[in-house]
């Protein structure tokens, strides 16, 4: 019972019920209209036949007088399926014809009876008060009244028949709709049940669950598909969040411990004013590094959450890259490195200038950090069009990243052992990747010189998908 109630609550069932009702109303209207029309048509024919007969009877009366009229009518009245004939005296008593009784007062007025009336025939065995007729009354010159009418049984029968057909048809229709209703509704309901079952599991925390798909590609499948894509994203964000909190615990505790140790050490030693000052400065330096890490983390999560996506505009990529190169150039020179830029003018993309600048800054900064002391001091920054995308690449000739570790270095806080001694938060490439994802692009890491024995170098390429101008 409750299942039936649930079934009725489904949209499919409600819609089909609504359609059924609307359709029934239309069908009923149509049937009534058709029967009404045909009945009127039959009545029309009846009247015409009666009028023709009246004309005939008048002619007979004029030619053969009352006796001829009586004879003719007697003969006609006996024929099977005959019309109604009555000849009555001036006071209304029936003299001849095939009608046993009439509604009183019917013969008083000449012309068409206003309504169908009831009468009884002589020939009726059952003597039922069942006959309805339409008649024309006329008064002869000698005061006799003549009624010629026609039974309305035929159109009445027709109407009843049509009505019956209507009821049967509607019945079949309703039954069919109910069956289809049930099938569609139940099917939809089952699939909805499966979906809500899956989502209950997901809500309980199992984010790896996915909504079921039937493979038919219908709207349910499309809904499931987009919900699944959404779940995938949520799962990834969630995964990232968990990873970050793990890493925060691990990687932020280290500098915090250092900070605390320094403060303790400063207190423990009876230091001079200058000693305290330098300890405090070191502590500020440590906390600045911590703040820096926090800021980078916040930035990444905001970029990943799409908070900056609203600030997208047309970016002169060529100029941004040149600005960035110019910003880092003196630093590179101080490290005996050389930055060479190959930037064709006028390449624009849709993006966030600030974030692209920061991402590129991170890449150049990395290149400077890791190419220090390399045999080949060249860092090449290049902007180029490649198929449907624009690529900004930074290539150095430092030690590079072994291909097996390339996925790792993009993760938050992951730093290769060889680079632990270098300054940095371990978040640079994570931010670049987040920025690229926001721009629907990718970060690609490749060897600069794939055939070199060692110091293959790293080429980091930011691939932006769409070109505006």
């Amino acid at each position, binding site marked *: 019972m409750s299942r039936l109630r649930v079934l009725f609550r489904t949209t499919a069932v409600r819609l089909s019920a609504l359609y059924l009702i609307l359709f029934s109303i239309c069908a009923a209207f149509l049937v009534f209209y058709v029967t009404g029309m045909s009945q009127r048509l039959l009545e029309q024919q009846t009247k015409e036949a009666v009028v023709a007969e009246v004309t005939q009877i008048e002619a007979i009366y004029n030619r053969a007088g009352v006796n001829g009229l009586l004879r003719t009518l007697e003969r006609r009245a006996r024929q099977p399926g005959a019309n109604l004939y009555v000849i009555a005296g001036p006071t209304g008593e029936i003299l001849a014809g095939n009608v046993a009784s009439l509604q009183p007062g019917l013969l008083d007025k000449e012309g068409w009876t206003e309504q169908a009336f009831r009468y009884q025939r002589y020939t009726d065995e059952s003597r039922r008060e069942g006959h309805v007729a339409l008649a024309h009354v006329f008064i002869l010159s000698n005061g006799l009244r003549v009624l010629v009418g026609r039974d309305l049984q035929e159109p009445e029968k027709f109407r009843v028949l049509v009505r019956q057909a209507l009821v049967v048809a509607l019945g079949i229709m309703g039954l069919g709709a109910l069956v289809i209703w049930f099938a569609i509704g139940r099917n939809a309901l089952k699939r909805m049940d499966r979906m809500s079952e899956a989502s209950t599991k997901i809500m309980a925390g199992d984010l790896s669950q996915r909504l079921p798909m039937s493979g038919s590609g219908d709207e349910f499948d499309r809904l499931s598909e987009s919900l699944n894509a959404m779940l995938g994203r949520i799962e990834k964000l969630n995964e990232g969040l968990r990873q970050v909190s793990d890493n925060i615990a691990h990687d932020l505790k280290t500098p915090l411990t250092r900070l605390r140790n320094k403060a303790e050490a400063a207190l423990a030693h009876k230091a001079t004013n200058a000693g305290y000052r330098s300890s405090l400065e070191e502590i*500020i330096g440590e906390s600045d590094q911590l703040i820096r890490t926090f800021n980078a983390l916040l930035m990444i999560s905001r970029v990943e959450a799409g908070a900056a996506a609203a600030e997208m505009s047309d970016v002169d990529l060529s100029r941004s890259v040149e600005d960035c190169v110019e*910003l*880092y150039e*003196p630093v590179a020179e101080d490290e005996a490195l050389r930055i060479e830029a190959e930037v064709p003018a006028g390449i624009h993309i849709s993006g966030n200038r600030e974030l692209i600048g920061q991402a590129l*800054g*991170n890449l150049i*900064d990395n290149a400077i950090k890791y190419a220090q002391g390399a045999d080949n001091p060249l860092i090449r920054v290049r902007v180029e069009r490649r198929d449907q995308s624009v690529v900004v690449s930074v290539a150095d000739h430092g030690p590079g990243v072994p291909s097996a570790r390339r996925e790792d270095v993009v993760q938050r806080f992951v730093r290769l052992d060889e680079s632990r001694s270098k300054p940095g938060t371990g978040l640079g490439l994570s931010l670049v990747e987040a920025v690229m994802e926001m721009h629907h692009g990718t970060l690609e890491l490749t060897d600069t010189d794939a055939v070199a024995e060692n110091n293959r170098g790293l080429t980091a390429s930011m691939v932006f998908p769409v070109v505006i101008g």
Partner: protein
Amino acid sequence: MVTRMKILIIEDDLEAAAYLAKAFREAGIVSDHASDGESGLFMASENSYDVLVIDRMLPRRDGLSVITELRRKAIHTPVLILSALGQVDDRVTGLRAGGDDYLPKPYAFNELLARVEVLGRRKGAPEQDMAYRVGDLELDRLSHSVRRQGKEIPLQPREFRLLEYLMKNAGQVVTRTMLLENVWDYHFDPQTNVIDVHVSRLRSKIEKDYDQPLLRTVRGAGYMIKDEAAKGDGRPDP
């Protein structure tokens, strides 16, 4: 006689506000304090301040709405927004609301001080000075030329803008982030000492052949260009 700068701090963290008031006093700046948005708005409307330092999240009235309301009342006191929120989009909304500068928490007090001083001075200083002069160093904004003791010093365009910004704020501390923001129009943390390298190049160009140093490094804060020999603050006389 230089008049002392007077600022209003709207900040609900009383401890932070007390620390700021003390630190500003030591720097020679008088400060009033409001601990919520409504009273801050009232004080800022009734009194005249050189700079307003407004925390983004305040009880009773949000920091941004204080700024919009002030601007609606045609009160154009420079506003510096302090915010614990992120950087990318937040700074944009802050500046759009009518703020003049934006500083994310946690910040170094020196950074805040330098920015407040620049904002406070800006109120009176004419923006459209066509030339700046610090001691014997002259910068002509029209011809994009720099001379010292009448001798032309060739500078790269970016170096020129760097010097221009320093000289516009002559006698005041300018922090590294302020330089990155105003000269490069970037608001991110460049990780390395990029700004220091640029400044030291500029310094070598303008000081190499001369005895008198002009561009000072202010420890723990940033840089300041100043005519050390002169008594005043080195700004050009009107």
